[in-house]
């Protein structure tokens, strides 16, 4: 295989905007108007350029630490990080297995480069294409009622309607107001009102997903009331209504079966899918989809997880968390979903970065899977030069 040595790495903070204030969820403070990526570009001596978003490393780290992580790539051939056979990735050599487990975001960059070197989309390194379109849900409907209190629940409903006008056919609503920011009973009532108003605003055909960020922990009576009172809204999935727990999930499944049997129960953002409780829930049929963060975990470990769930005979699907991963993260999820049979739907923080040129399109609430090599996204060199070049951090081999 032709050698492609990584010789240069550029790091730049890239800021963009949601276009409106995104409020809090059940546990955290306001998300804000702006969102950002830590764009990393790696260049090979053959002239290939691959990219990723280093946000996972920067959530608690520093540029200095990130430079240390990325510095390990310099001087290396891009094909030494994965085993490849018949054009497919088949494993990770021991030298890099821990590194890539700890820094899953680096795999985006490597799959982007490998795809470009081999002339294949990144999904082609995992398997065959199983779908041509990736449905996506707008994931920016936080507690907008606390941002625009004069509108109450209508603030969420009107933002959902706006998302549908822009093309999304699925929206996720943050719930769990009983957890922290409301008096518990008032919070449950507001959650119900938000769901029902949103259904009214978006019509019957749009999927409504809800995510309580565990905001119903310790409040089973309120959770049952929520499930019962929102049955008419035909919620597509309920996510993190409570912290993963067998008895809690058994109760939740019973309420779901009684009031809204088509609703999926989804959970499991953390621990790269390896926490034993996830497997106990899967074993009992209590987890309809699992959601580790794609950018944190990286392509190969995620692919392995999907295969292991399938091979265990569990009926749990894959729905990667992707909120903080922003635009670059979404490109990775689209690639993964193109090859993964168990994939459900992509989380979309709906951000537009004028810095990126993206292959494929967005139609009817779905992203079209591109056949462009790698991740199917390029940096606009002129925008980068004008806006970011002066403040980038550059590492050389």
């Amino acid at each position, binding site marked *: 295989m032709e050698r492609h040595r990584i010789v240069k790495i550029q790091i730049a903070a890239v800021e963009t905007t949601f276009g409106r204030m995104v409020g809090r969820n059940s546990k955290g403070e*306001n998300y804000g108007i*702006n969102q950002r990526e830590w764009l990393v570009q790696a260049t090979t001596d053959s002239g290939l350029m691959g990219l990723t978003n280093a946000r996972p490393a920067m959530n608690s*780290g520093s540029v200095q630490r990130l430079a240390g992580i990325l510095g390990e790539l310099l001087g290396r051939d891009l094909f030494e990080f994965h085993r490849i056979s018949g054009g497919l990735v088949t494993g990770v050599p021991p030298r890099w297995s821990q590194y890539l487990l700890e820094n899953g975001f680096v795999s985006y960059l490597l799959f982007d480069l490998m795809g470009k070197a081999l002339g294949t989309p990144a999904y082609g390194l995992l398997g065959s294409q199983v779908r041509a379109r990736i449905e996506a849900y707008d994931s920016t409907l936080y507690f907008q009622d606390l*941002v625009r*209190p004069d509108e109450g629940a209508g603030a969420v409903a009107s933002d959902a309607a706006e998302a549908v006008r822009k093309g999304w056919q699925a929206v996720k609503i943050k719930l769990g107001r009983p957890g922290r920011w*409301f*008096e518990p009973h008032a919070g449950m009532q507001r959650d119900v009102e938000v769901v029902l108003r949103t259904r009214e605003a978006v019509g019957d055909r749009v999927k409504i997903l809800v995510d309580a960020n565990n905001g119903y922990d310790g409040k089973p009576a309120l959770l049952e009331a929520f499930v019962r009172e929102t049955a008419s809204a035909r919620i597509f999935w309920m996510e993190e209504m409570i912290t993963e727990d067998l008895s809690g999930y058994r109760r939740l499944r019973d309420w779901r079966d009684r009031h809204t049997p088509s609703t999926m129960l989804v959970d499991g953002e953390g621990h790269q899918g390896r926490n034993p409780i996830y497997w106990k829930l899967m074993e009992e049929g209590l987890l309809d989809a699992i959601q580790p963060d794609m950018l944190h975990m990286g392509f190969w470990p995620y692919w392995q997880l999907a295969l292991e769930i399938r091979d265990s005979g569990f009926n749990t699907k894959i729905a990667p968390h992707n909120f903080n991963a922003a635009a670059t993260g979404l490109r990775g999820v689209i690639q993964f979903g193109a090859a993964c049979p168990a994939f459900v739907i992509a989380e979309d923080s709906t951000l537009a970065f004028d810095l990126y040129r993206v292959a494929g399109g967005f139609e009817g609430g779905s992203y079209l899977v591109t056949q462009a090599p790698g991740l199917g996204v390029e940096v606009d060199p002129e925008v980068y030069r004008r806006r970011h070049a002066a403040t980038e*951090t550059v590492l050389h081999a």
Partner: protein
Amino acid sequence: MAADVITQASVTPVPAWYAKELGKNAYADNIGSMRLEWVVRIRTAGGVEGLTIANSYMRRPDASVASLLSLLRELFLGRKASELVSMNGKAVVGPGRSLEVAFREHGWASIGAFDLVGKSLDVSCVEMLGGPARESVEAYDSTLYFQDFLNPELGAGQCAMEAREAVQAGYRQIKIKTGRGGRWMLPEAGMRRDVEVVHAIRDAVGPDVRLMVDANFGYDGHLPLLEDFVRETAPDDLFWLEEMITADVAGYRALRTMVERHGSRALLVCGEVDRSPISPVWLDLIREKLIDGYQPDIVSQGFLNWLSIERSLEASAILGIPHDFGNGVFGVPAGVAWGLANHRFAVLESERSPSVIYDMDGYRFADGAWSYSGGPGLGISIDEETWGRTHARHETTVEG
């Protein structure tokens, strides 16, 4: 029931918007455009109302509206307003019986007590704090975060542009966030950008505007770079250097030496992360005259804790410069009341959120300073028309 018995307390989240997006500081990601002000209203049977905010309480990871309501019930309901504080004439001399521990832990609640008692007795908080020490309170704009990250195309020029806007809005003092090398840039590049930003702002606002810098400990572990920063910015005549490093006697000795070596006149200030009673490391820094100003938060500590801090500082020449960021609009009346009454007070931190719910007719900002024409308690009340239209739906009340 006696008219001054407290029968009702409520909590309401109210958005407090900044005039712009605030970027990162040395350790935290973007501050954003809006924070909630957790407004607490405490009412007596006779209809007198005291106000405070519970922002610092709600920032605790285990806090919730439910737990806050329990606390308000325990602290206030069934008590007489007159029993909340102990007074000598018009001056407050301490907490009411059995409230010492609670007001030390939840200083913000003591401000609500001051406001309620002041309104009950028709006495201003300034008088309750010992009477006026000055006619107005100077204020500094504290919204110059890492704005260069928000508009990298302009870079340091973005910070300079926003500093000019602050001066046009009437501010004569501006604080600049620094410490970029702590997390968001490589250490040396971060120091260079910090210097560039300070130079650009000094050029933009001229020599008469007072400039301070605050590194939020961004130079920890980088003393040689800190010395570079001190040397390079000495011509910019910085008024103070805040939290350049974590409080530590050896570190501050080194910093004091740097400042003197490079002819800087900058004061050394820190302490916003401390609380009453003053912690040993700050007592050491104060005793060795290694800091010139001490900065626990005015609202989270509250008036009673700050009175206690003042007693501890009596023998020193330390300035009291209460931190007042994250306190929304309410931070203005709380900080102004304290500043007007306190001889040691230096300048008020301002996050420049416009008032949407408070009637603050007695307050006026002009020529870089707040003045206050008087009124009982803090001299503010709720604009009930706005409240009813916009915020009442999110008010949760406990009664008893």
